[in-house]
């Protein structure tokens, strides 16, 4: 099956810093999403981004489908950004709607 690798596995920042999270995937995809799992376990959909660039406030994401990677940018980080960030994909040509998740990046933002 498709492999999804995220880096770095852990990231510690001071409030106000910027960061870039990376997601590499091993096959062509027709769906790529970024999620944030907060310390209480709630998974929040951040972006649906199988290709191109999107921005939402301090967050933005870019997917280069031909090179099989996606980047999530967090600017001016805040303590509330802490949690685990997951990349999840559906391989192209797959029938149905299952997502394959990466292992996540654990982000800690200190005040």
């Amino acid at each position, binding site marked *: 099956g498709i492999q*999804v690798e995220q880096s770095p596995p852990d990231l510690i920042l001071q409030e106000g810093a910027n960061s870039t999270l990376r997601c590499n995937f091993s096959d062509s995809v027709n*769906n790529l*999403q970024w*999620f944030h799992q907060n310390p*209480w*376990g*709630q*998974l*929040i*959909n951040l972006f*649906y981004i199988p290709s191109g660039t999107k921005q939402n406030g301090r967050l933005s994401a870019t997917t280069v489908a031909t090179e099989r990677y996606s980047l999530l940018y967090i600017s001016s980080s805040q303590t509330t950004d802490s949690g685990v960030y*997951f990349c*999840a994909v*559906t391989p192209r040509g797959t029938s*149905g*709607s*299952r*997502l*394959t*998740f*990466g*292992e*996540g990046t654990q982000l800690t933002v200190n005040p």
Partner: protein
Amino acid sequence: GAGVSQSPRYKVAKRGQDVALRCDPISGHVSLFWYQQALGQGPEFLTYFQNEAQLDKSGLPSDRFFAERPEGSVSTLKIQRTQQEDSAVYLCASSLVDRNYGYTFGSGTRLTVV
């Protein structure tokens, strides 16, 4: 409701006990998904419903796992004869149409088998 509701929030089961986990999706959401998340890992797909039809159950780890959505709204994930390796958070998600962008996840049920 305003979000995806899962109950119970926590469940402790003795090994061998049967459990039932409930998911109330957002009203009108056609698609419903169950995922299993072990500690420190990403969620793993279990099964998918479109309305009342179970279109994909390839992620269910054994025949002890069973899911249903008889009226196309509320879904129940049942685990029979629970084992310690079943300990995990079980997440339910729903979406408006048969596309897997725009998922809304519930807060999950944390199952501990002792």
